[in-house]
């Protein structure tokens, strides 16, 4: 058990503890809000990575699930009592709806080539965006509406801790998920779907399950997001959210769970500081361009992202060590022969 705690897990626990203790020694409001945002988007990006990184499915409609969660929570808290119980209920409801939608979308398109899922989710997300704009009775259209968050979250710190707790729980759950036999099959589908199918796995079932899992956790992120703002409008359904998830996953590292968290951290911090710079240099108002370019370069040159790059460096270093060892061996042998 202790040996298990060493290495990666040990550092993760340290980081989680430091983050949990963070409100104790800092009362920077901006920082708390920024970190909360990072936790929420980490959940979104991880859920996205279940599709992109683990199963090799590209979805362009992830904002739809995020938006479903955000609106479900907002509407329930607004219409009913803003209590903690209602909050939990709204999360469950959002997850249920998101699960059903992703189930249907997956069933329709995942038996076809990868393009279809990308296109279909994009179009479906477009439909949801329009629906959120038009269905004013519920969503109040583009203007959105404010609502009261549960008493418990009036204190920013409590919400910060809740978001952190959710991130940790989702991380643990998804780690279990990707390490399970189910997760292994998903990776097999990513690597070679035909071969996986020929081994007797019903790949469609696995892909649809991945789609549902991703949708459910994206909805959770959306629920947390709307409560963090105490406000919701159509921006939660826009392509920008999908792009955020995509950028975070790609830049952080696909096919890992740490990658999306790292990516979310990098992107949120960069976004924060670049939009600060925009006051002085107007070009930074279009910071998306830089992200777009970095993203394109990342897709071509670093398809494994930060985590993959880090692993490569480490592998190279240990590879070098091995090579050095190998290079030494003949010398040692020669010496031994000399001595002998």
């Amino acid at each position, binding site marked *: 058990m202790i040996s298990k705690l060493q290495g990666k897990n040990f550092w993760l626990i340290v980081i989680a503890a430091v983050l949990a203790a963070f409100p104790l020694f800092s009362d920077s409001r901006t920082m708390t809000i920024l970190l909360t945002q990072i936790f929420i988007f980490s959940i979104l990006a991880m859920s996205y990575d279940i599709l992109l990184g683990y199963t090799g499915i*590209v979805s362009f409609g992830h904002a739809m699930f995020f938006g479903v969660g955000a609106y479900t929570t907002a509407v329930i808290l607004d219409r009913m009592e803003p209590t903690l119980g209602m909050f939990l209920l709204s999360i469950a409801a959002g997850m249920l709806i998101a699960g059903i939608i992703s189930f249907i979308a997956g069933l329709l*398109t995942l038996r076809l*080539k990868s393009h279809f899922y*990308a296109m279909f989710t994009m179009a*479906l997300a477009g439909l949801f965006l329009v629906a959120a704009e038009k269905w004013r009775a519920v969503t109040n259209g583009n203007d959105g509406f404010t609502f009261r968050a549960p008493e418990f979250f009036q204190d920013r710190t409590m919400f910060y801790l809740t978001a952190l707790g959710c991130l940790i729980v989702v991380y643990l759950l998804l780690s279990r998920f990707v390490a399970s036999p189910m997760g292994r099959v998903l990776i097999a589908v990513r690597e070679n779907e035909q071969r996986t199918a020929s081994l007797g796995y019903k790949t469609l079932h696995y892909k649809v399950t991945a789609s549902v899992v991703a949708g459910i956790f994206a909805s959770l992120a959306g629920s947390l997001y709307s409560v963090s703002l105490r406000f919701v409008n159509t921006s939660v359904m826009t392509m920008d959210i999908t792009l955020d998830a995509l950028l975070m996953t790609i830049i952080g590292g696909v096919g890992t769970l740490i990658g999306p968290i790292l990516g979310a951290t990098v992107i949120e911090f960069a976004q924060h500081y670049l939009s600060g710079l925009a006051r002085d240099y107007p070009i930074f108002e*279009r910071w*998306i361009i830089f992200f777009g370019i970095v993203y394109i370069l990342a*897709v071509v040159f670093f398809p494994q992202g930060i985590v993959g790059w880090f692993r490569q460096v480490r592998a190279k270093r240990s590879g070098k060590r091995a090579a050095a060892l190998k290079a030494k061996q003949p010398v040692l042998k020669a010496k031994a022969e000399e001595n002998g």
Partner: protein
Amino acid sequence: MDLLLNLTVNGLATGMLIFLLAAGLTLIFGLMSVLNFAHGGLFAWGAFSGVFFYGVTGSFLISVIGAVLTGIVLGFITEKLIIKPVYGNHVQQILITLGFMLVLSEMLKVVFGPNQIAAKTPDYLSGSWEAGGVILIKYRLFIILVGLLVFAVVQFILKRTKIGLIVRAGVLNKEMVQALGIDINKVFLYVFMAGAALAALAGALMAPYSGVVYAEMGLEFAILAFIVVVIGGMGSFPGSLLAAILVGLAGSYMAYFVPSLSLAVNMILMAVVLIFRPQGLFTAKEA
């Protein structure tokens, strides 16, 4: 009667614009099996540069030509820089073209400013004809005409010329064409540029039709074009015309009779096609 006719003309005009966009998309997909998510960006660039050239020169014809040239140049850059490095990797293609879409539409805001710009219709195309109590808006008829013309020209090139033969052969069997000593990469490049030119043309024609151009229009229309490509069958050129008309008409009628369902109807069409005929309504080939 008057109403129905107007709705039909309206739907046909929108359908033709979507067709111009979808045609490039479907050809590029059929030939290179690249789904170009940046296509809407090229469309938006066509729209903006059309408005720009119209403002500078005051000639509608020159503005359309300028937009098409912009599309060709951008198509060249896109193929060389974005598509080339990721041939054969579908996931990377989808990701990178979407990233380029982002860059394209943000670049629009840098070059032309973040606000929407009004687009004017030239005098000789504005106004309407009245024939027997039926009012026909000139510009819409003009779009329909251009759409049919483009369809005829492209169809002629595809069916009657050597390059068309190569392209069609490439859609059917890329390796075979290559084995016959034809530089398929060059064909890819030309088809991509042609597709980009069609997208830009659609954008340039769209601008006076909608009255304004804005950076997000690319994504909006790209979604419609995707729906059309799925309904018509990926890689089928006539299929995309029929599907575009179908989507245009359905959108136009629904917007009048059941406004709340106008976008949903396209999605429903797409879902039905995906369930029953995933290879597309108008193709015989298996997907």
